[in-house]
């Protein structure tokens, strides 16, 4: 099923799902939310078993843990939020936004969207879901005091208004065909109107919070009144953070936890060889990038930028750093599996000769330049070390300046001529490009300024025709790859480890653990 057909029938599809799969013939099973999928192919998926409790460990947890979806910043937060809340839409395996709390989403111009909520949905405290809850949940991102991490995205919600007992109208500042995908993001999950203290907040999600202690643990108990028929399966989920990767694997293998994320690629063999444990690889568009500032010397030289890109030894990075759990990238943020991937753009190879040609041309031989790397940006320290080695023969003297994770994003990312960034998967290309590459974006960390790119980006957002849209995105990829100050060597796979009795897991490439939303999908086999 190609993206094009899906888009073609989007309007029908989004409406049709309200009728529980009546229009399934118009799409493929890929278009259906997970639970419908399961119902349709009972012979492939064994009958889920009810009951049981699991403990889940993610890589991060601190006293800054939050129950507020808008403020979520780490993997435990996302998992917790998907346990407790639902969005208007939710991601499927291909990161398309499928209807969730919304029964239908209609639009004629990609600018004004009419949302109808499902009937009979209750919050954990018994209050029914109202359109006012949606208005509050989406508009609170505008208030800077909310501390929303997605404010730049939410700024395109010009207004959200109640238009009926179950109806909401979302007006965007400019057309955006990707709204269903945007709303599936964990930051836009739906909370109760007026909630300001989130510690005991009620959601509509599959688990109710029984205990929430920041930096210690979260316990969710099965929501008996969950609106998705038959779900969830487990009685209880306990969520903890184990930051040390070795300790995390040990906790899994000792049976203390049943699901962990972010396994070191060097430990996968160990987990697979242990009896009763498995590994799930999720190829994703997560990448660690080299940020080459385009507005300060010496890195504002086009020759230096290109030279550095030619010095990236992608196959070695893939192999030595990630033991093959990675996909080679081409200095732009689009994963090869994406339907809009620029397949005809030649792959940039590791080419020290061309690098030294560019260095000579720019008169930059023998230049000394420190690169800032940190454990905060996964793999960046080792990547910097590899780059340093391959730069020597080309006549570039790179220093590796490793700084602690603490304060890295505020003080180092994009604050030096050469630094490393780390960008999590985003559901849409528009989001990726708007947040990290648009000239006036706050996180355009290389300070790249390209009016042509900005124009293409705006045009593609409102373009309804998929062929034309794809061509625009292909052009943007070419611009980013050849002109922008961002080097992207590889996309990293996300690796989860789990107790083999845990069933129902499948990759959703927005993050590990089924894009953090495993809670309502999994059960424990006997």
């Amino acid at each position, binding site marked *: 099923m190609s993206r094009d057909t899906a888009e073609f029938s989007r309007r029908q599809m989004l409406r049709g799902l309200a009728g529980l799969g009546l229009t399934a013939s118009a799409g493929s099973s890929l278009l259906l939310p997970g639970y419908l999928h399961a119902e349709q192919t009972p012979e492939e998926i064994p009958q889920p078993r009810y009951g049981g409790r699991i403990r889940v460990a993610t890589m991060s947890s601190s006293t800054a843990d939050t129950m507020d979806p808008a403020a979520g910043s780490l993997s435990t937060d996302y998992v917790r939020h998907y346990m407790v809340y639902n969005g208007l839409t939710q991601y499927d395996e291909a990161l398309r936004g499928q209807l969730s709390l919304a029964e239908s989403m209609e639009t004629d111009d990609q600018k004004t969207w009419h949302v109808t909520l499902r009937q009979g949905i209750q919050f954990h405290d018994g209050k029914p879901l109202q359109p006012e809850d949606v208005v509050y949940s989406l508009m609170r991102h505008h208030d800077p005091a909310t501390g929303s991490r997605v404010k730049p995205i939410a700024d395109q919600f010009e207004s959200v208004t109640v238009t009926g007992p179950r109806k909401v109208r979302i007006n965007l500042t400019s057309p955006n065909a990707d709204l269903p995908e945007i709303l599936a993001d964990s930051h836009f999950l739906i909370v109760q109107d007026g909630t300001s203290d989130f510690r005991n907040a009620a959601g509509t999600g599959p688990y109710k919070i029984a205990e929430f202690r920041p930096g210690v643990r979260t316990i969710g108990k099965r929501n008996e009144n969950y609106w998705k028929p038959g779900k969830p399966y487990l009685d209880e989920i306990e969520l903890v953070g184990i930051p040390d990767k070795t300790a995390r694997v040990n906790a899994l293998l000792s049976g203390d936890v049943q699901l962990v994320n972010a396994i*070191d690629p*060097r*430990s996968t063999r*160990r987990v697979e060889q242990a009896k009763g444990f498995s590994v799930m690889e999720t190829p994703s568009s997560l990448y660690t990038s080299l940020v080459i500032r385009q507005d300060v010397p010496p890195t504002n030289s086009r020759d230096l930028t290109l030279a550095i890109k030619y010095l990236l030894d992608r196959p070695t990075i893939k192999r*030595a750093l990630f033991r093959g759990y990675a996909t080679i990238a081409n200095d732009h943020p689009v994963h090869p599996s994406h339907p809009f991937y620029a397949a005809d753009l030649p792959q940039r190879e590791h080419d020290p000769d061309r690098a030294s040609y560019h260095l000579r041309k720019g008169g930059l031989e023998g230049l000394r330049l420190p690169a800032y790397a940190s454990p905060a940006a996964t793999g960046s320290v*080792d990547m910097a*070390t590899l780059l340093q080695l391959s730069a020597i023969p080309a006549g570039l003297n790179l220093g*590796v300046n*490793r*700084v602690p994770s603490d304060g890295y994003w505020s003080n180092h990312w994009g604050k030096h001529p050469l630094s490393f960034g780390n960008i999590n998967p985003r559901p849409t290309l528009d989001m990726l490009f708007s947040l990290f590459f648009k000239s006036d974006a706050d996180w355009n960390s290389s300070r790249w300024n390209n009016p042509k790119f900005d124009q293409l980006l705006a045009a593609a957002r409102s373009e309804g025709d998929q062929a034309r849209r794809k061509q625009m995105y292909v052009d943007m990829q070419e611009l980013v790859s050849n002109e922008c100050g961002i080097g992207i060597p590889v996309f990293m796979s996300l690796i989860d480890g789990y107790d083999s009795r845990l069933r129902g897991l499948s990759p959703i490439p927005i993050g590990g653990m089924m894009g953090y939303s495993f809670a309502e999908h999994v059960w424990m086999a006997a």
Partner: protein
Amino acid sequence: MNKLYTRLGIAGSVGLSLAGLWLLISLFGPVLAPHGPGEIVDYEVFLPMSAEHPLGTDYLGRSVISRIMDGARFTVGIAFAAALLAALMGTGLGLFSAVSGKAVDESISRLMDALLSIPNKIFALVMIAAFGSSVPLLLLITGITYTPGVYRIARALAVNINQMDYIQVARARGEGRAYLALSEVLPNMIHPMLTDFGLRFVYVVLLLSSLSFLGLGVQPPNADLGSLVRENMSGLWEGAPAIMAPAAAIASLTIGVNLFIDSLRGRD
């Protein structure tokens, strides 16, 4: 050589040889190492020992022996300098405190208490967050961290010795404070303080490796011995030499220094 051996005994000689070996490695290691510390020598990671790679390869396929030979100088250098710094400041202040009046003694003791009550790793975390990690800063942090510890022990010893009859006699003779401190009290403290120095050295080595566990130690591409253990933790399960060798290096270094110092205090 024979005379030295008799003086030190078996344990002392072993200790001296180990300490000497590490001193040599830390001085000449970088020159003698078969490969550069950052060079990837094999695509296979966590290789076992072989003729080609005497201590196998690390988690990126780098030569472990080269990395140890390069990293030893950070561990040995920082630990020695920091332990020395702590010993000099701590003993000096402790002695001064013990022979001075109550007011001075109290002020210094309270200041040291305040310092000591801040957990050392968190002190390091804050300092490194504030000033960025560098070798001189690590030296200073570890040195300051252990000064109050040395101080307390030195002061306790000095106060005790100060009560001894021969000191009272000396005081009655009308000897000055400085003379009392340096000629009467200090010589009687040397042995425990030397033992303490040996232990402090070990602690600095271990604190350094703890800091590298927290990502605060010597920063890559350089690596002290503790960082080498830390970065190869995923090879533990396979018993890779990449993790065993640096751990053994730390152990032999610290034990060597201690054996040597122990044997000195037993004799002379």
